[in-house]
């Protein structure tokens, strides 16, 4: 990296910092907004977190300009991560009715199980 190039980088880091602060305020503000559909609120929250995550990964971790090898490692990891997230749905039985979901003494969970077993 040349000297001028680094000065450009510093400017980018400053802008990313301001963007991350703005998105943090936004994500907290939005959590006070009442959405009629709960999943819309969750989706908006995750979307903002995703944008913040992208800004950090692309700029601070330099993933916007990295070697192929790193991208391949991350693609492989991401595919295993997706598999991990959907693993429970691979089983036929409905996990919501399985006793294994109540790991600790969880009154809400027990009540739910009792209701659903009738």
């Amino acid at each position, binding site marked *: *990296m040349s*000297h001028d190039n*680094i000065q450009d*980088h*510093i400017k980018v*880091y*400053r802008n*990313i*910092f301001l963007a*991350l*602060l703005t998105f*943090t305020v936004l*994500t*907290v503000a939005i*959590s006070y907004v009442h959405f009629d559909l709960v999943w819309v*609120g*969750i989706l908006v*929250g*995750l979307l*903002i*977190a995703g944008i*913040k*995550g992208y800004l*950090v*990964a692309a700029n*601070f*971790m330099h993933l916007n300009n990295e*070697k*192929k*090898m*790193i991208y391949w*490692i*991350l693609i*492989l*990891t*991401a595919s*295993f*991560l997706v598999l*991990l*997230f959907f*693993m*429970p749905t691979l089983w036929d039985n409905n*996990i*919501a009715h399985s006793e294994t*979901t*109540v*790991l*600790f*003494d*969880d*009154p*809400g*969970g027990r*009540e*739910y199980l009792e209701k659903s077993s009738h």
Partner: protein
Amino acid sequence: MQIPYNEKLRPDTGLYNAKLGIWLFLASEIMLFGGLFSAYVLLRSSNADFMMHQHYLNVPLATLNTIILITSSVTMVMAWVSLKLNDLKKYKLYMLLTLLCSVGFLIVKFFEYSAKFEHHLYPSTDNFLGTYFTLTGLHGLHIIGGMVVMIYLVGPGVKMWETNKERFTNRVEVIGLYWHFVDLVWIFLFPALYLL
């Protein structure tokens, strides 16, 4: 025996070895936190009352911690940039600022945890608090791990700057990648546990 490709890039990967190493480690970290996030999603989707203790969590303190961690990511990247600019003094300043941020984060976390215990809210209270303490506890351990490496790199480890500038700069880049990852995990933990 000299370990190869500490500074020079390996022709086939285009990377120095430590960078490939840290990315492989981060890949395993993605799976570690991913597994716990997956457990969170599973527990939440299978129990309508899973989040009933969420209102006990302190959103202003967590927001403060988010800002602290974002700031520390910037000071960390600036520490690396300072070395690229051949400015060891600034490097030390930015590294110490990063350390200061991480201490601040842990202090805030200490107050948060103490308040929970005072209200008799423990990991064993229910599934939500179990998940909350596991995820934030593991994340907190990562903060402490990063601090140990930072203390070394701003303390005794800084001697390497005299003998091998490039390798030392690479070491700082590697701890930086780790630190940004810890920041990234928090970016998702914060809304998942406190807000949504």
